[in-house]
C-alpha cells in the first residue's frame, strides 16, 4: 500500500483542543440532547453521525442526538474517556478447560463417533467416515466439541458487540484482532483464543508496546504462528517474519537476515502442555550470538522486541493502519508522520494518538463522510443494533457474516481482512443486500404481542443455554431456500414494525441517521416509515460509513 502523499492539510494545535474539552466536559450530562439549544460549538447531527459511525457500529438516532449538541472535541474525549477493560457478556462455560482435558474430550468424541459409525463396537480410533461397510454412519447427536466451542466463542463475541455500551472499545478490540491475527482454523485450543480476546480488551485503548510484548508471549499467537515449535538449531521463522512485516514495521525496514536472527532469539518460548500457559523452555533457547538490526549479542525475544520498539517506523506503521481503519483509504504521509510523532512522544500510549487522529482535518473533512465501506461486522451488527432487533441465537448472524467475508476469530490469513474496497465484490454485494432484506423482513413477521419474534429453532439444535432466559428458543433469519428478491421492497417495508430505536421519527431524521451521503434511490414523499427504513437500508449509501 504505497499511497501517493497528498499535500498536508495543515496542522491543528492539539493543546488547544484539549483545553476546550476540559471547559465543556459534562455539558451533555446535564441537559437532554434534543432540547439543548444549538450553541456555536455544537457539532450538529451530521458530524455526530460521522464520528459515531466511524468509531462504532451503526449509531441510532438517539445515539446521534446524544452527542450532536456537544463540542466536537468534547465528543472525542467522551469516546476516549473511562472505559471498561472487560466484556459484559458472560463467557462460555469451557474457558478453564486445560489442554489435557481438551485432548481427552476430542478422543472421547472420536471414539463415540467411531462406535456409532460401525455396526459392531470397535476400539478403532479412526474417524467414522471410514467406509467400514454395512450400516452408514447416522447423523451425529453430538457435534464435535471443538467445533462447538468455536461456535460458542464466535457467538459470545457477536453478543458482546450487540450489547456493548462502549462500541468504540469494541471496535478497537476488533482492530487488534485484525492486527495480531489468530484463527480458530489453526488454533484449535479454544480457551487460548478466548484469552487472547481478553488480552485485546485489557489493552484496547492502553499501550501498544505493552500489548505487543504480551502478544509475543500469548499462547494463541504462539500456536497460530508456530512460535511454540521454534527451537534452537531448527528455528521456525513464521512469527519472526510476521512480527516485522505485519505487526510492527512493514516491508522494507528489515532484511531476511534480521528475520532469521529474530527467529533464533525467540526460540524456547512455548506453552505448558498441562496448563496451556506461556512457558520459557531454556533448553530449547538458542543462546548463541545473533546480529539483529546491525547489533550483535546473545539476544532473547524480549531484546528483539525492545530493539524493534526503538524504531520510529513502528509508530508510523501502526498510525498508518489506524488511519486506514478510521480516516481514509488514502494515506496522507505528512499527517501520518505528524501523528506518529505524537504516538512516539506518548511512549506508545493509544489515547493521545487516537485523539489526534479524530481531530485531524482529514477525519473531519465533509468530503470524507461516507468515504469508507462498512465491514461485514459493522454492517450486520450495526443494522441489528440500529433496528433494536432481539437476536437470541447468534449462529445465524455468524453465518451471515461468513457469507460476506468476515467471521470473527477467522481472518483469511495472518494479514487479516484486507478491507476497504475488497469488502464489496459482485458476490458480497449481492449477499449484503440479501442479508439486509432478511433483516427488514424479520421485522415484518412479528406477531401482535411481542415485536419481532422469529420462527422457533429447529428441534435438537443446541443453542446457548444462557440465552434461553425467556424459556423459548428464538432464532432470527431462518434461511430461506428461495431468495427474497421476489418480494418487493414496498411489501416488506410497509408492514415493518419499527422498534423503539426508530419509531416515530420523520423521514429526514431517519435518512440523516442511516446514510452518510444523499440517497441514490431517492425517497418518495408520503412513504410509510417502514418503507423509508427499508429503502434506506437497501440504498447503496448504506454500505458506507
Amino acid at each position, binding site marked *: 500500500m504505497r*499511497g501517493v502523499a497528498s499535500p498536508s492539510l495543515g496542522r491543528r494545535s492539539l493543546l488547544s483542543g484539549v483545553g476546550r474539552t476540559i471547559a465543556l466536559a459534562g455539558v451533555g450530562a446535564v441537559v437532554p440532547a434534543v432540547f439543548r439549544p444549538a450553541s456555536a460549538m455544537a457539532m450538529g447531527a451530521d458530524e455526530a453521525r460521522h464520528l459515531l459511525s466511524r468509531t462504532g457500529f451503526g449509531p441510532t438516532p438517539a445515539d446521534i442526538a446524544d452527542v450532536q449538541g456537544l463540542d466536537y472535541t468534547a465528543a472525542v474525549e467522551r469516546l476516549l474517556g473511562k472505559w471498561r477493560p472487560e466484556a459484559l457478556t458472560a463467557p462460555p462455560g469451557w474457558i478453564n478447560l486445560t489442554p489435557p482435558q481438551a485432548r481427552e474430550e476430542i478422543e472421547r468424541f472420536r471414539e463415540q463417533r467411531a462406535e456409532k459409525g460401525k455396526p459392531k463396537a470397535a476400539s478403532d480410533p479412526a474417524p467414522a467416515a471410514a467406509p467400514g461397510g454395512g450400516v452408514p454412519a447416522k447423523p451425529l447427536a453430538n457435534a464435535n466439541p471443538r467445533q462447538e466451542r468455536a461456535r460458542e466463542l464466535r457467538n459470545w463475541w457477536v453478543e458482546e458487540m450487540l450489547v456493548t455500551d462502549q462500541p468504540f472499545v469494541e471496535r478497537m478490540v476488533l482492530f487488534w484482532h485484525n492486527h495480531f491475527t489468530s484463527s480458530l482454523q489453526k488454533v484449535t485450543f479454544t480457551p487460548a483464543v478466548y484469552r487472547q480476546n481478553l488480552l485485546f480488551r485489557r489493552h484496547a485503548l492502553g499501550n501498544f508496546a505493552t500489548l505487543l510484548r504480551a502478544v509475543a508471549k500469548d499462547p494463541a499467537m504462539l500456536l497460530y504462528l*508456530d512460535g511454540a515449535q521454534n527451537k534452537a538449531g531448527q528455528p*521456525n521463522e513464521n512469527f519472526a517474519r510476521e512480527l516485522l512485516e505485519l505487526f510492527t514495521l512493514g516491508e522494507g525496514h528489515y532484511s531476511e537476515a534480521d528475520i532469521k536472527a529474530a527467529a533464533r532469539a525467540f526460540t524456547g518460548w512455548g506453552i505448558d502442555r498441562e496448563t496451556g500457559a506461556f512457558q520459557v523452555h531454556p533448553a530449547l533457547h538458542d543462546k548463541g550470538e545473533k546480529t539483529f538490526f546491525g547489533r550483535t549479542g546473545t539476544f532473547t525475544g524480549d531484546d528483539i522486541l525492545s530493539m524493534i520498539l526503538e524504531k520510529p517506523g513502528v509508530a508510523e506503521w501502526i498510525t498508518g493502519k489506524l488511519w486506514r481503519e478510521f480516516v481514509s483509504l488514502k494515506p496522507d504521509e505528512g499527517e501520518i508522520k505528524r501523528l506518529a510523532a505524537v504516538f512516539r512522544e506518548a511512549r506508545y500510549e493509544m489515547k493521545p494518538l487516537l485523539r489526534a487522529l479524530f481531530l485531524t482535518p482529514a477525519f473531519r473533512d465533509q468530503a470524507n463522510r461516507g*468515504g469508507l465501506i462498512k465491514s461485514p461486522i459493522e454492517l450486520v451488527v450495526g443494522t441489528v443494533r440500529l433496528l433494536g432487533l432481539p437476536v437470541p441465537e447468534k449462529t445465524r448472524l455468524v453465518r451471515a457474516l461468513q457469507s460476506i467475508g468476515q467471521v470473527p476469530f477467522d481472518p483469511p490469513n495472518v494479514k487479516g481482512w484486507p478491507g476497504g474496497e475488497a469488502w464489496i465484490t459482485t458476490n458480497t454485494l449481492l449477499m449484503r443486500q440479501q442479508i439486509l432484506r432478511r433483516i427488514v423482513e424479520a421485522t415484518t413477521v412479528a406477531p401482535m404481542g411481542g415485536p419481532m419474534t422469529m420462527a422457533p429453532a429447529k428441534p435438537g439444535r443446541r443453542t446457548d443455554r444462557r440465552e434461553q432466559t425467556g424459556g423459548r428458543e428464538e432464532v432470527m433469519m431462518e434461511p430461506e431456500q428461495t431468495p427474497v428478491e421476489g418480494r418487493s421492497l414496498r411489501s416488506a417495508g410497509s408492514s415493518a414494525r419499527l422498534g423503539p430505536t426508530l419509531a416515530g421519527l420523520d423521514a429526514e431524521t431517519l435518512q440523516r441517521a442511516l446514510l452518510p451521503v444523499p440517497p441514490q434511490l431517492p425517497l418518495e414523499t408520503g412513504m410509510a416509515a417502514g418503507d423509508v427504513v427499508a429503502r434506506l437500508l437497501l440504498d447503496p449509501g448504506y454500505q458506507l460509513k
Partner: protein
Amino acid sequence: MLRRDFLQVSAGLAVALATPQALAQGGTSAAKAAQRTAEPGSPRWDRILVLVELKGANDGLNTVIPFADPLYAKLRGPLAIARDRVVPLDQRVGLHPALKGLMEGWKERDLAVVQGVGYPYPNRSHFRSIEIWDTASAASQTLSEGWLAQAFNGASRPAGRAIDAVVVDTNALPATGGDLRTIVMQDAESFIQQARAMRDGGAPAAANPALAHVMKVRGEIHAASLGLAERMRGAPAPAHAFATDPFSHQLALATRILLAKVPVVAIKVALGGFDTHARQLETHERLLTQLGEGLAMFRRNLIAAGLWKDVLVMTYSEFGRRVKPNASAGTDHGTAAPHFMMGGLVKGGLHGAYPSLADLQDGDLKHSVDFRDLYATVARRWWGLNDTFGRRNPTMVDIIA
C-alpha cells in the same frame, strides 16, 4: 487494498470502446510472423485461461520431485518422498504420487511442466509475493492492475459480452483494474437469482470513491446477470461428476460456465492451505490429491465436450518452499517452483530447467524461468496480445502448439 484509480474504474464501466490501435502498433511488420498461433491486433477472445492459484505457497520440490538427484533425499531428510513412490516423468524428475491423476494428460502430451518458475530478488512475504505475481510486477515495483487487465488494456471487445472474467475465489487481483469486467461468484444459480433483484444503479458519477465502487459493482452485477441466466439454463451438465471437495466444486462451476459458452477470457479458481510450516507431509498429500484429481476430471469433461482446445489451464503460487525442512516437520518460505500448464493446444513435456540443488541461494532454489515470460507467452501465443509485462526481450516458453 486500494488498488485502483477510481476515475479509470468509472470510465471502464461503459462497454470499452477503445480502439485496437495501441495493440496494432508495429503490426505491419509483425503481421507476417503472427499467423502461427494468434494474430496480434485481433485478440483471440474465444480462448479461455483457467488460472489455478495454489494459496499459501506450494512446495514445488515435493510436487515435481528431482528423485534422481541424491541431494534431494539428503536435503529434504524426513520430508523426502521415497523414490519408489515418485511417479516418474523422465529419468530425473517425477510427480508426487498424489498427482497421479495428471498422468493421463502427461501421456497424451497435453500437460506441460514448467520448472523453476520465479523472479529475481524473490520476496518471501505471502502477500507481497502474490501481489507481484498477480500484477506481473518486478520485485521492486508496486502495480495496481492485475496482469490480465494489463494484457487486455485497449483491446477492442467483440459485441455481446457483458463480463470478461469470472473469479470463483476471493482473490480477484489478476483480473482487477483497467477495462476488464470481472465477476466474483461462488455459485451461479444464487448469483443469477439475486442479481435480478438488484436494480441498475444508474450512472455512478460519484466523487466519493467508496460510493463509486459500490455503484460500479452494482452495474457489473446488473450487466452480468442479463446474459448469464439464459446461457446457463440451456447448458449441458458435465459428463463426469466432480468430487465434493471445495476445489472440485470450483472446477465444476468453471466447467459449467465453459459448457454454457459464457463468453469470458479467464476463469480463476484456487486451492488453499499450502502454507505448510508444520507437519507438512499429510497436508501436502491431501492438497495435491485434490489438485490432481480435480484437474484430471476437469480435463476429461472438457475433452468430452469438445472444448479442450479452447482452454489453457495454468497453476501459480506466491513462491515455493525452503529446500531444508524446519524443526516442525514443515517447510518455511522459499522461492522458485514448478507450475503446470494444461490444455488441448499445450505442448506437453518438461520446460525450463530444474533449479540445481547444489547451487542454492540462502538455502533456496534459483529460478530458471521468469514468471513474466510465462505471462508474456500466454498473452502472445494464446491471445495474440503484445504485453510483455515490463520485460524488454521476454523469452517465450514453448508451451503452446
